[in-house]
Protein backbone atom coordinates (compact mmCIF):
# COMPACT_ATOMS: atom_id res chain seq x y z
CA UNK A 1 0.00 0.00 0.00
CA UNK A 2 2.71 2.46 1.02
CA UNK A 3 4.73 1.42 -1.99
CA UNK A 4 1.70 1.89 -4.24
CA UNK A 5 1.09 5.37 -2.85
CA UNK A 6 4.74 6.34 -3.14
CA UNK A 7 4.71 5.24 -6.75
CA UNK A 8 1.66 7.37 -7.43
CA UNK A 9 3.18 10.31 -5.60
CA UNK A 10 6.29 10.05 -7.74
CA UNK A 11 4.22 9.84 -10.91
CA UNK A 12 2.20 12.91 -9.88
CA UNK A 13 5.30 14.94 -9.07
CA UNK A 14 6.92 14.09 -12.39
CA UNK A 15 3.70 14.91 -14.22
CA UNK A 16 3.41 18.25 -12.46
CA UNK A 17 7.01 19.10 -13.29
CA UNK A 18 6.48 18.18 -16.94
CA UNK A 19 3.24 20.17 -17.17
CA UNK A 20 4.80 23.34 -15.74
CA UNK A 21 7.84 22.97 -17.99
CA UNK A 22 5.80 22.27 -21.12
CA UNK A 23 3.42 25.15 -20.49
CA UNK A 24 6.27 27.56 -19.71
CA UNK A 25 8.16 26.91 -22.91
CA UNK A 26 5.00 26.62 -25.00
CA UNK A 27 3.84 30.07 -23.96
CA UNK A 28 7.30 31.58 -24.35
CA UNK A 29 7.49 30.12 -27.85
CA UNK A 30 4.12 31.61 -28.75
CA UNK A 31 4.21 34.17 -31.53
CA UNK A 32 3.60 37.78 -30.50
CA UNK A 33 4.83 39.37 -27.31
CA UNK A 34 2.70 40.26 -24.34
CA UNK A 35 2.63 43.94 -25.32
CA UNK A 36 1.34 43.53 -28.86
CA UNK A 37 -1.83 45.28 -29.86
CA UNK A 38 -1.08 48.45 -27.96
CA UNK A 39 0.57 51.51 -29.47
CA UNK A 40 3.70 50.89 -31.46
CA UNK A 41 6.39 51.10 -28.82
CA UNK A 42 9.76 52.67 -29.32
CA UNK A 43 12.61 50.18 -28.92
CA UNK A 44 13.73 51.90 -25.71
CA UNK A 45 10.33 51.58 -24.07
CA UNK A 46 10.02 48.00 -25.21
CA UNK A 47 13.43 47.21 -23.77
CA UNK A 48 12.43 48.82 -20.48
CA UNK A 49 9.17 46.91 -20.40
CA UNK A 50 10.98 43.67 -21.08
CA UNK A 51 13.43 44.44 -18.33
CA UNK A 52 10.60 45.19 -15.93
CA UNK A 53 9.06 41.79 -16.65
CA UNK A 54 12.47 40.05 -16.71
CA UNK A 55 11.88 39.04 -20.31
CA UNK A 56 15.41 40.09 -21.30
CA UNK A 57 17.01 37.32 -19.28
CA UNK A 58 18.01 34.10 -21.04
CA UNK A 59 15.10 31.67 -21.25
CA UNK A 60 16.63 29.22 -18.83
CA UNK A 61 17.07 31.93 -16.21
CA UNK A 62 13.44 32.97 -16.63
CA UNK A 63 12.44 29.33 -16.26
CA UNK A 64 14.47 29.03 -13.10
CA UNK A 65 13.03 32.16 -11.57
CA UNK A 66 9.50 31.01 -12.45
CA UNK A 67 10.09 27.90 -10.36
CA UNK A 68 11.60 29.98 -7.56
CA UNK A 69 8.48 32.15 -7.58
CA UNK A 70 6.20 29.13 -7.77
CA UNK A 71 7.73 27.62 -4.66
CA UNK A 72 7.05 30.89 -2.85
CA UNK A 73 3.52 31.02 -4.25
CA UNK A 74 4.27 33.86 -6.66
CA UNK A 75 3.14 33.35 -10.24
CA UNK A 76 4.59 36.54 -11.69
CA UNK A 77 2.97 39.75 -12.92
CA UNK A 78 -0.10 39.71 -15.17
CA UNK A 79 0.85 40.78 -18.68
CA UNK A 80 -2.45 42.43 -19.46
CA UNK A 81 -3.82 43.65 -16.15
CA UNK A 82 -1.15 46.10 -15.13
CA UNK A 83 -0.28 46.40 -11.44
CA UNK A 84 -1.78 42.99 -10.70
CA UNK A 85 0.14 39.89 -9.85
CA UNK A 86 -1.27 36.61 -11.14
CA UNK A 87 -1.24 35.16 -7.62
CA UNK A 88 -3.44 38.01 -6.40
CA UNK A 89 -5.93 37.56 -9.25
CA UNK A 90 -6.10 33.84 -8.58
CA UNK A 91 -6.38 34.42 -4.84
CA UNK A 92 -9.38 36.65 -5.55
CA UNK A 93 -11.07 34.14 -7.84
CA UNK A 94 -10.19 30.91 -6.08
CA UNK A 95 -12.64 31.17 -3.15
CA UNK A 96 -15.54 31.67 -5.56
CA UNK A 97 -14.53 28.66 -7.66
CA UNK A 98 -13.92 26.53 -4.58
CA UNK A 99 -17.34 27.36 -3.14
CA UNK A 100 -18.94 26.62 -6.48
CA UNK A 101 -17.07 23.35 -6.96
CA UNK A 102 -17.51 22.07 -3.41
CA UNK A 103 -21.19 22.98 -3.41
CA UNK A 104 -21.75 21.17 -6.69
CA UNK A 105 -19.75 18.15 -5.52
CA UNK A 106 -21.73 17.79 -2.29
CA UNK A 107 -25.07 18.39 -3.99
CA UNK A 108 -24.26 15.80 -6.64
CA UNK A 109 -23.40 13.22 -3.95
CA UNK A 110 -26.51 14.12 -1.91
CA UNK A 111 -28.72 13.52 -4.95
CA UNK A 112 -26.79 10.78 -6.72
CA UNK A 113 -25.93 8.43 -3.83
CA UNK A 114 -29.43 7.68 -2.47
CA UNK A 115 -30.97 7.45 -5.92
CA UNK A 116 -28.17 5.21 -7.15
CA UNK A 117 -28.41 2.87 -4.15
CA UNK A 118 -32.17 2.58 -4.41
CA UNK A 119 -32.11 2.04 -8.17
CA UNK A 120 -29.42 -0.62 -7.74
CA UNK A 121 -31.44 -2.46 -5.09
CA UNK A 122 -34.59 -2.39 -7.22
CA UNK A 123 -33.61 -3.25 -10.79
CA UNK A 124 -36.19 -2.61 -13.50
CA UNK A 125 -38.19 -0.37 -11.16
CA UNK A 126 -39.57 2.96 -12.28
CA UNK A 127 -36.80 4.83 -10.50
CA UNK A 128 -34.21 2.61 -12.13
CA UNK A 129 -35.49 3.57 -15.57
CA UNK A 130 -35.67 7.18 -14.49
CA UNK A 131 -32.01 7.17 -13.43
CA UNK A 132 -30.92 5.93 -16.81
CA UNK A 133 -33.16 8.36 -18.66
CA UNK A 134 -31.92 11.26 -16.55
CA UNK A 135 -28.34 10.21 -17.07
CA UNK A 136 -28.87 10.10 -20.80
CA UNK A 137 -30.55 13.49 -20.71
CA UNK A 138 -27.72 15.04 -18.76
CA UNK A 139 -25.11 13.56 -21.06
CA UNK A 140 -26.91 15.03 -24.04
CA UNK A 141 -27.93 18.49 -22.88
CA UNK A 142 -24.61 20.25 -22.48
CA UNK A 143 -24.16 22.90 -19.81
CA UNK A 144 -23.74 25.58 -22.49
CA UNK A 145 -27.43 24.98 -23.25
CA UNK A 146 -28.74 23.91 -19.85
CA UNK A 147 -27.22 26.79 -17.87
CA UNK A 148 -28.62 29.61 -20.06
CA UNK A 149 -32.02 27.88 -20.13
CA UNK A 150 -31.95 27.77 -16.32
CA UNK A 151 -31.26 31.51 -16.25
CA UNK A 152 -34.09 32.02 -18.70
CA UNK A 153 -36.60 30.07 -16.62
CA UNK A 154 -35.61 30.87 -13.02
CA UNK A 155 -34.21 34.37 -13.36
CA UNK A 156 -35.89 35.99 -16.35
CA UNK A 157 -39.33 34.38 -16.31
CA UNK A 158 -39.86 33.50 -12.65
CA UNK A 159 -37.51 36.04 -11.10
CA UNK A 160 -36.57 33.63 -8.29
CA UNK A 161 -32.81 34.02 -8.44
CA UNK A 162 -30.42 36.72 -9.62
CA UNK A 163 -29.07 36.06 -13.11
CA UNK A 164 -25.40 36.80 -12.55
CA UNK A 165 -22.73 38.05 -10.19
CA UNK A 166 -21.50 36.80 -6.84
CA UNK A 167 -22.86 39.35 -4.37
CA UNK A 168 -24.90 37.07 -2.11
CA UNK A 169 -25.29 33.38 -1.39
CA UNK A 170 -28.47 33.47 -3.45
CA UNK A 171 -26.26 34.10 -6.48
CA UNK A 172 -24.69 30.70 -6.04
CA UNK A 173 -27.89 28.63 -6.09
CA UNK A 174 -28.33 28.35 -9.85
CA UNK A 175 -24.63 27.93 -10.71
CA UNK A 176 -24.22 25.16 -8.13
CA UNK A 177 -27.27 23.33 -9.46
CA UNK A 178 -26.13 23.78 -13.05
CA UNK A 179 -22.70 22.38 -12.24
CA UNK A 180 -24.03 19.53 -10.10
CA UNK A 181 -26.68 18.26 -12.52
CA UNK A 182 -24.62 16.28 -15.01
CA UNK A 183 -22.45 15.12 -12.18
CA UNK A 184 -25.28 13.77 -9.99
CA UNK A 185 -26.53 11.66 -12.87
CA UNK A 186 -23.09 10.10 -13.32
CA UNK A 187 -22.87 9.40 -9.59
CA UNK A 188 -26.29 7.75 -9.58
CA UNK A 189 -25.44 5.60 -12.58
CA UNK A 190 -22.08 4.47 -11.15
CA UNK A 191 -23.51 3.64 -7.73
CA UNK A 192 -26.43 1.81 -9.32
CA UNK A 193 -24.05 -0.32 -11.38
CA UNK A 194 -21.79 -0.95 -8.39
CA UNK A 195 -24.65 -2.00 -6.11
CA UNK A 196 -26.07 -4.30 -8.74
CA UNK A 197 -22.76 -6.05 -9.31
CA UNK A 198 -22.15 -6.62 -5.61
CA UNK A 199 -25.64 -7.91 -4.83
CA UNK A 200 -25.08 -11.15 -6.77
CA UNK A 201 -21.84 -11.99 -4.95
CA UNK A 202 -21.79 -14.93 -2.53
CA UNK A 203 -20.74 -12.94 0.53
CA UNK A 204 -24.00 -10.99 0.33
CA UNK A 205 -25.95 -14.25 0.40
CA UNK A 206 -23.91 -15.28 3.44
CA UNK A 207 -24.62 -11.99 5.16
CA UNK A 208 -28.33 -12.33 4.49
CA UNK A 209 -28.44 -15.95 5.64
CA UNK A 210 -26.84 -14.86 8.91
CA UNK A 211 -30.06 -12.92 9.37
CA UNK A 212 -28.68 -9.43 8.99
CA UNK A 213 -31.21 -6.74 8.34
CA UNK A 214 -31.43 -5.31 4.87
CA UNK A 215 -30.04 -1.93 5.86
CA UNK A 216 -27.11 -3.55 7.64
CA UNK A 217 -26.30 -5.68 4.62
CA UNK A 218 -26.29 -2.58 2.47
CA UNK A 219 -24.20 -0.42 4.75
CA UNK A 220 -21.74 -3.07 5.90
CA UNK A 221 -21.35 -5.34 2.89
CA UNK A 222 -22.65 -3.75 -0.27
CA UNK A 223 -21.59 -0.13 -0.10
CA UNK A 224 -17.84 -0.45 0.58
CA UNK A 225 -17.43 -2.41 -2.64
CA UNK A 226 -20.16 -0.70 -4.63
CA UNK A 227 -18.53 2.67 -4.05
CA UNK A 228 -15.25 1.70 -5.69
CA UNK A 229 -16.37 2.68 -9.21
CA UNK A 230 -17.38 6.00 -7.70
CA UNK A 231 -13.92 6.50 -6.22
CA UNK A 232 -12.22 5.81 -9.50
CA UNK A 233 -14.58 8.40 -10.95
CA UNK A 234 -13.26 11.00 -8.47
CA UNK A 235 -10.31 12.04 -10.61
CA UNK A 236 -12.20 12.39 -13.91
CA UNK A 237 -14.94 14.11 -11.92
CA UNK A 238 -12.49 16.71 -10.69
CA UNK A 239 -11.52 17.37 -14.28
CA UNK A 240 -15.18 17.57 -15.29
CA UNK A 241 -15.90 19.97 -12.42
CA UNK A 242 -13.10 22.27 -13.55
CA UNK A 243 -14.23 22.20 -17.16
CA UNK A 244 -17.82 22.70 -16.10
CA UNK A 245 -16.96 25.56 -13.80
CA UNK A 246 -15.32 27.42 -16.68
CA UNK A 247 -18.63 27.31 -18.57
CA UNK A 248 -20.83 27.94 -15.54
CA UNK A 249 -18.75 30.89 -14.38
CA UNK A 250 -19.00 32.40 -17.84
CA UNK A 251 -22.77 31.95 -18.08
CA UNK A 252 -23.52 33.20 -14.57
CA UNK A 253 -20.87 35.91 -14.64
CA UNK A 254 -19.10 34.63 -11.53
CA UNK A 255 -15.58 36.07 -11.17
CA UNK A 256 -13.91 32.74 -10.36
CA UNK A 257 -10.65 31.45 -11.80
CA UNK A 258 -12.48 29.81 -14.69
CA UNK A 259 -13.47 33.28 -15.84
CA UNK A 260 -9.90 34.52 -15.44
CA UNK A 261 -8.75 31.58 -17.49
CA UNK A 262 -11.11 32.27 -20.40
CA UNK A 263 -10.52 36.03 -20.28
CA UNK A 264 -6.79 35.45 -20.09
CA UNK A 265 -7.00 33.15 -23.10
CA UNK A 266 -9.01 35.66 -25.13
CA UNK A 267 -6.61 38.52 -24.23
CA UNK A 268 -3.59 36.25 -24.55
CA UNK A 269 -2.46 37.13 -21.06
CA UNK A 270 0.27 34.48 -20.97
CA UNK A 271 1.22 34.65 -17.34
CA UNK A 272 -2.39 34.56 -16.16
CA UNK A 273 -3.21 31.56 -18.36
CA UNK A 274 -0.11 29.81 -17.15
CA UNK A 275 -0.87 30.55 -13.52
CA UNK A 276 -4.38 29.16 -13.77
CA UNK A 277 -3.06 26.08 -15.60
CA UNK A 278 -0.57 25.46 -12.80
CA UNK A 279 -3.31 25.76 -10.16
CA UNK A 280 -5.69 23.52 -12.13
CA UNK A 281 -3.06 20.84 -12.75
CA UNK A 282 -2.06 20.86 -9.11
CA UNK A 283 -5.70 20.45 -8.04
CA UNK A 284 -6.28 17.61 -10.47
CA UNK A 285 -3.16 15.73 -9.46
CA UNK A 286 -4.18 16.10 -5.82
CA UNK A 287 -7.57 14.64 -6.64
CA UNK A 288 -5.85 11.75 -8.39
CA UNK A 289 -3.78 11.03 -5.29
CA UNK A 290 -6.85 11.29 -3.08
CA UNK A 291 -8.65 8.80 -5.30
CA UNK A 292 -5.71 6.39 -5.07
CA UNK A 293 -5.72 6.71 -1.29
CA UNK A 294 -9.47 6.02 -1.03
CA UNK A 295 -9.04 3.12 -3.39
CA UNK A 296 -6.57 1.43 -1.10
CA UNK A 297 -8.69 2.07 1.98
CA UNK A 298 -11.89 0.70 0.46
CA UNK A 299 -10.62 -2.32 -1.39
CA UNK A 300 -8.23 -4.61 0.50
CA UNK A 301 -7.33 -6.43 -2.71
CA UNK A 302 -5.46 -3.38 -4.00
CA UNK A 303 -3.34 -3.27 -0.86
CA UNK A 304 -2.26 -6.87 -1.39
CA UNK A 305 -1.52 -6.68 -5.10
CA UNK A 306 0.98 -3.86 -5.00
Amino acid at each position, binding site marked *: MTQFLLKRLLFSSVTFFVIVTAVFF*LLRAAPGGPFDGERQLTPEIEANLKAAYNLDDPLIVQYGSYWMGLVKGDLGPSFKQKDFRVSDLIAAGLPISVVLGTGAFLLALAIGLPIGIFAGMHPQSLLDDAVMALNNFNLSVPSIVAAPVMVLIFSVLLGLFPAGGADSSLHYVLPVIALAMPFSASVARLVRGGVRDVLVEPHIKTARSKGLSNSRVVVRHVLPIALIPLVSYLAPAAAALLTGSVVVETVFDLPGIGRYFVDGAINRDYTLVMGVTVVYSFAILMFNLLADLCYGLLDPRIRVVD
Partner: protein
Amino acid sequence: MAFWREIFSSITALVAGAFIALLLAVSLFGPLLSPHDLETMNWDRIGEGPSLVHWFGTDEVGRDLFVRTMEGLRVSITIALITTAVALSIGIPWGAVAGLSGGYTEQIMMRIVDAIYCIPGLLIIILLVVVFGRNQYLLFAGIGAIAWLDIARIVRGQTLQLKDALYISSARALGANTFYLLRKHVIPNVIGPIVIFSTLMVPNVILMESTISFLGLGIQEPDTSLGVLVSDGTQVMESAPWQLLFPGVVLALMVWSLNTLGDRMRMTSQTSQVA
Protein backbone atom coordinates in the same frame (compact mmCIF):
# COMPACT_ATOMS: atom_id res chain seq x y z
CA MET B 1 -27.40 -7.43 -41.30
CA ALA B 2 -28.41 -9.38 -38.21
CA PHE B 3 -26.32 -6.96 -36.19
CA TRP B 4 -28.27 -3.96 -37.46
CA ARG B 5 -31.62 -5.70 -37.05
CA GLU B 6 -30.70 -6.47 -33.46
CA ILE B 7 -29.76 -2.83 -32.85
CA PHE B 8 -32.93 -1.38 -34.29
CA SER B 9 -35.15 -3.84 -32.44
CA SER B 10 -35.08 -1.24 -29.67
CA ILE B 11 -37.54 1.60 -30.20
CA THR B 12 -35.21 4.21 -28.69
CA ALA B 13 -32.39 3.16 -30.97
CA LEU B 14 -34.75 3.36 -33.92
CA VAL B 15 -35.85 6.86 -32.91
CA ALA B 16 -32.22 7.90 -32.42
CA GLY B 17 -31.27 6.49 -35.81
CA ALA B 18 -34.17 8.32 -37.43
CA PHE B 19 -33.14 11.60 -35.80
CA ILE B 20 -29.56 11.18 -37.01
CA ALA B 21 -30.72 10.46 -40.55
CA LEU B 22 -33.10 13.41 -40.45
CA LEU B 23 -30.55 15.85 -39.05
CA LEU B 24 -27.88 14.71 -41.49
CA ALA B 25 -30.25 15.01 -44.44
CA VAL B 26 -31.51 18.43 -43.38
CA SER B 27 -28.04 19.76 -42.68
CA LEU B 28 -26.89 18.61 -46.12
CA PHE B 29 -29.94 19.53 -48.17
CA GLY B 30 -31.84 21.87 -45.84
CA PRO B 31 -30.30 25.05 -47.26
CA LEU B 32 -31.72 23.99 -50.63
CA LEU B 33 -35.21 23.82 -49.15
CA SER B 34 -35.04 27.33 -47.82
CA PRO B 35 -34.98 30.43 -50.03
CA HIS B 36 -32.66 32.19 -47.60
CA ASP B 37 -28.90 32.07 -47.54
CA LEU B 38 -26.30 32.15 -44.84
CA GLU B 39 -24.98 35.68 -45.09
CA THR B 40 -27.81 37.92 -46.30
CA MET B 41 -28.80 40.36 -43.60
CA ASN B 42 -32.35 41.59 -43.73
CA TRP B 43 -32.46 44.78 -41.69
CA ASP B 44 -36.27 44.88 -41.80
CA ARG B 45 -36.55 41.58 -40.01
CA ILE B 46 -34.18 41.76 -37.06
CA GLY B 47 -34.68 39.31 -34.20
CA GLU B 48 -38.00 38.04 -35.54
CA GLY B 49 -39.73 35.03 -34.02
CA PRO B 50 -40.32 31.80 -35.92
CA SER B 51 -42.72 32.14 -38.83
CA LEU B 52 -43.56 30.42 -42.09
CA VAL B 53 -41.01 32.59 -43.87
CA HIS B 54 -38.22 32.15 -41.33
CA TRP B 55 -38.81 28.75 -39.71
CA PHE B 56 -36.44 29.33 -36.80
CA GLY B 57 -36.84 33.13 -36.82
CA THR B 58 -34.00 35.53 -37.55
CA ASP B 59 -30.95 36.63 -35.59
CA GLU B 60 -29.87 40.09 -34.47
CA VAL B 61 -28.77 41.16 -37.93
CA GLY B 62 -31.72 39.62 -39.73
CA ARG B 63 -30.11 36.42 -40.97
CA ASP B 64 -32.25 33.32 -41.29
CA LEU B 65 -31.68 31.19 -38.20
CA PHE B 66 -32.80 27.90 -39.75
CA VAL B 67 -30.16 28.09 -42.46
CA ARG B 68 -27.55 29.15 -39.94
CA THR B 69 -28.44 26.35 -37.54
CA MET B 70 -28.17 23.77 -40.32
CA GLU B 71 -24.82 25.23 -41.34
CA GLY B 72 -23.70 25.14 -37.71
CA LEU B 73 -24.75 21.51 -37.47
CA ARG B 74 -22.81 20.67 -40.61
CA VAL B 75 -19.69 22.41 -39.27
CA SER B 76 -20.00 20.58 -35.96
CA ILE B 77 -20.41 17.21 -37.65
CA THR B 78 -17.51 17.86 -40.01
CA ILE B 79 -15.24 18.77 -37.13
CA ALA B 80 -16.35 15.69 -35.25
CA LEU B 81 -15.58 13.40 -38.19
CA ILE B 82 -12.18 14.93 -38.97
CA THR B 83 -11.19 14.91 -35.32
CA THR B 84 -12.26 11.31 -34.89
CA ALA B 85 -10.13 10.40 -37.91
CA VAL B 86 -7.15 12.22 -36.37
CA ALA B 87 -7.70 10.45 -33.06
CA LEU B 88 -7.93 7.04 -34.72
CA SER B 89 -4.80 7.54 -36.78
CA ILE B 90 -2.75 8.39 -33.70
CA GLY B 91 -4.47 6.15 -31.16
CA ILE B 92 -4.54 2.83 -33.05
CA PRO B 93 -0.82 2.64 -33.91
CA TRP B 94 0.18 4.01 -30.50
CA GLY B 95 -1.88 1.47 -28.55
CA ALA B 96 -0.98 -1.42 -30.83
CA VAL B 97 2.76 -0.71 -30.76
CA ALA B 98 2.69 -0.32 -26.98
CA GLY B 99 0.75 -3.54 -26.54
CA LEU B 100 2.95 -5.55 -28.88
CA SER B 101 6.31 -4.29 -27.65
CA GLY B 102 5.79 -4.71 -23.92
CA GLY B 103 8.57 -3.92 -21.46
CA TYR B 104 9.94 -0.42 -21.06
CA THR B 105 8.58 0.81 -24.40
CA GLU B 106 5.06 -0.05 -23.31
CA GLN B 107 5.59 1.45 -19.86
CA ILE B 108 6.82 4.76 -21.24
CA MET B 109 4.21 4.98 -23.97
CA MET B 110 1.33 4.33 -21.61
CA ARG B 111 2.74 6.67 -18.91
CA ILE B 112 2.67 9.45 -21.48
CA VAL B 113 -0.98 8.66 -22.13
CA ASP B 114 -1.69 8.64 -18.37
CA ALA B 115 0.05 11.98 -17.91
CA ILE B 116 -1.87 13.76 -20.66
CA TYR B 117 -5.03 12.10 -19.39
CA CYS B 118 -4.68 13.87 -16.05
CA ILE B 119 -5.20 17.27 -17.59
CA PRO B 120 -8.71 18.23 -18.67
CA GLY B 121 -9.04 18.36 -22.44
CA LEU B 122 -10.57 21.82 -22.40
CA LEU B 123 -7.47 23.12 -20.65
CA ILE B 124 -5.13 21.72 -23.29
CA ILE B 125 -7.19 23.11 -26.14
CA ILE B 126 -7.44 26.56 -24.58
CA LEU B 127 -3.67 26.55 -24.08
CA LEU B 128 -3.17 25.63 -27.73
CA VAL B 129 -5.55 28.43 -28.74
CA VAL B 130 -3.57 30.92 -26.67
CA VAL B 131 -0.28 29.85 -28.18
CA PHE B 132 -1.22 29.47 -31.83
CA GLY B 133 -4.14 31.86 -32.09
CA ARG B 134 -7.67 30.95 -33.02
CA ASN B 135 -8.21 28.87 -36.10
CA GLN B 136 -10.34 25.94 -37.09
CA TYR B 137 -7.56 23.56 -38.04
CA LEU B 138 -5.98 24.00 -34.67
CA LEU B 139 -9.28 23.06 -33.13
CA PHE B 140 -9.35 19.80 -35.10
CA ALA B 141 -5.79 19.01 -34.14
CA GLY B 142 -6.31 20.01 -30.50
CA ILE B 143 -9.43 17.94 -29.93
CA GLY B 144 -7.90 15.04 -31.85
CA ALA B 145 -4.80 15.31 -29.68
CA ILE B 146 -6.92 14.53 -26.64
CA ALA B 147 -9.39 12.07 -28.09
CA TRP B 148 -6.68 9.64 -29.19
CA LEU B 149 -5.83 8.81 -25.57
CA ASP B 150 -8.94 6.68 -25.08
CA ILE B 151 -8.38 4.92 -28.39
CA ALA B 152 -4.78 4.13 -27.47
CA ARG B 153 -5.88 2.61 -24.15
CA ILE B 154 -8.54 0.44 -25.73
CA VAL B 155 -6.30 -0.73 -28.55
CA ARG B 156 -3.52 -1.61 -26.12
CA GLY B 157 -5.95 -3.64 -24.01
CA GLN B 158 -7.19 -5.50 -27.07
CA THR B 159 -3.65 -6.05 -28.32
CA LEU B 160 -2.58 -7.54 -25.00
CA GLN B 161 -5.36 -10.09 -25.33
CA LEU B 162 -4.26 -10.99 -28.84
CA LYS B 163 -0.55 -10.97 -28.16
CA ASP B 164 -0.23 -14.53 -26.97
CA ALA B 165 -2.56 -16.02 -29.54
CA LEU B 166 -1.04 -18.96 -31.36
CA TYR B 167 -1.14 -17.39 -34.80
CA ILE B 168 0.73 -14.32 -33.57
CA SER B 169 3.47 -16.42 -31.99
CA SER B 170 3.66 -18.49 -35.16
CA ALA B 171 3.98 -15.37 -37.30
CA ARG B 172 6.73 -14.15 -34.97
CA ALA B 173 8.49 -17.49 -35.13
CA LEU B 174 8.41 -17.25 -38.90
CA GLY B 175 10.24 -13.94 -38.59
CA ALA B 176 7.44 -11.40 -38.93
CA ASN B 177 8.41 -7.93 -37.70
CA THR B 178 6.24 -5.65 -35.58
CA PHE B 179 5.01 -3.64 -38.53
CA TYR B 180 3.86 -6.76 -40.35
CA LEU B 181 2.12 -8.09 -37.24
CA LEU B 182 0.34 -4.78 -36.79
CA ARG B 183 -0.87 -4.59 -40.34
CA LYS B 184 -1.81 -8.20 -40.86
CA HIS B 185 -3.03 -9.37 -37.49
CA VAL B 186 -3.49 -6.74 -34.81
CA ILE B 187 -5.27 -3.89 -36.56
CA PRO B 188 -7.82 -6.04 -38.40
CA ASN B 189 -8.68 -7.64 -35.07
CA VAL B 190 -9.08 -4.50 -33.00
CA ILE B 191 -10.92 -2.44 -35.58
CA GLY B 192 -14.40 -3.67 -34.60
CA PRO B 193 -14.48 -2.47 -30.98
CA ILE B 194 -12.76 0.73 -32.07
CA VAL B 195 -15.40 1.59 -34.65
CA ILE B 196 -18.05 1.14 -32.00
CA PHE B 197 -16.16 3.29 -29.52
CA SER B 198 -15.78 5.97 -32.18
CA THR B 199 -19.54 6.33 -32.48
CA LEU B 200 -19.51 7.32 -28.82
CA MET B 201 -16.61 9.68 -29.42
CA VAL B 202 -18.35 11.74 -32.09
CA PRO B 203 -20.97 13.25 -29.74
CA ASN B 204 -18.27 14.07 -27.19
CA VAL B 205 -16.24 15.85 -29.81
CA ILE B 206 -19.32 17.81 -30.90
CA LEU B 207 -19.84 18.88 -27.29
CA MET B 208 -16.21 19.84 -26.87
CA GLU B 209 -16.20 21.95 -30.04
CA SER B 210 -19.46 23.65 -29.04
CA THR B 211 -18.13 24.46 -25.59
CA ILE B 212 -14.95 26.01 -26.93
CA SER B 213 -16.82 28.01 -29.54
CA PHE B 214 -19.32 29.06 -26.87
CA LEU B 215 -16.47 30.48 -24.78
CA GLY B 216 -15.38 32.52 -27.81
CA LEU B 217 -12.22 30.50 -28.42
CA GLY B 218 -13.26 28.29 -31.33
CA ILE B 219 -15.09 28.98 -34.57
CA GLN B 220 -15.34 32.72 -35.28
CA GLU B 221 -17.72 34.89 -37.29
CA PRO B 222 -18.53 34.86 -40.17
CA ASP B 223 -18.23 31.05 -39.82
CA THR B 224 -20.62 29.47 -37.45
CA SER B 225 -21.18 26.33 -35.44
CA LEU B 226 -23.80 25.20 -32.96
CA GLY B 227 -21.67 26.49 -30.08
CA VAL B 228 -21.41 29.94 -31.68
CA LEU B 229 -25.17 30.05 -32.26
CA VAL B 230 -25.94 29.02 -28.68
CA SER B 231 -23.54 31.68 -27.44
CA ASP B 232 -25.16 34.35 -29.63
CA GLY B 233 -28.58 33.18 -28.50
CA THR B 234 -27.58 33.47 -24.85
CA GLN B 235 -26.81 37.17 -25.37
CA VAL B 236 -30.39 37.95 -26.42
CA MET B 237 -32.37 35.23 -24.67
CA GLU B 238 -34.48 37.67 -22.67
CA SER B 239 -35.98 39.28 -25.75
CA ALA B 240 -35.58 36.44 -28.26
CA PRO B 241 -35.39 33.07 -26.47
CA TRP B 242 -35.84 31.10 -29.70
CA GLN B 243 -32.36 32.16 -30.77
CA LEU B 244 -31.03 30.12 -27.85
CA LEU B 245 -33.59 27.32 -27.95
CA PHE B 246 -33.47 26.25 -31.61
CA PRO B 247 -29.70 25.73 -31.89
CA GLY B 248 -29.65 24.35 -28.33
CA VAL B 249 -32.34 21.76 -29.05
CA VAL B 250 -30.71 20.73 -32.33
CA LEU B 251 -27.39 20.29 -30.51
CA ALA B 252 -28.95 18.26 -27.70
CA LEU B 253 -30.96 16.13 -30.13
CA MET B 254 -27.90 15.27 -32.21
CA VAL B 255 -25.82 14.40 -29.16
CA TRP B 256 -28.61 12.36 -27.58
CA SER B 257 -29.20 10.38 -30.79
CA LEU B 258 -25.51 9.63 -31.27
CA ASN B 259 -25.08 8.62 -27.63
CA THR B 260 -28.12 6.38 -27.67
CA LEU B 261 -27.19 4.66 -30.90
CA GLY B 262 -23.56 4.26 -29.85
CA ASP B 263 -24.57 2.73 -26.52
CA ARG B 264 -26.91 0.36 -28.24
CA MET B 265 -24.22 -0.68 -30.70
CA ARG B 266 -21.79 -1.34 -27.90
CA MET B 267 -24.26 -3.41 -25.91
CA THR B 268 -25.35 -5.39 -28.94
CA SER B 269 -21.79 -6.21 -29.94
CA GLN B 270 -20.97 -7.35 -26.40
CA THR B 271 -23.94 -9.71 -26.19
CA SER B 272 -23.36 -11.09 -29.67
CA GLN B 273 -19.75 -11.82 -28.79
CA VAL B 274 -20.88 -13.83 -25.80
CA ALA B 275 -23.45 -15.76 -27.82
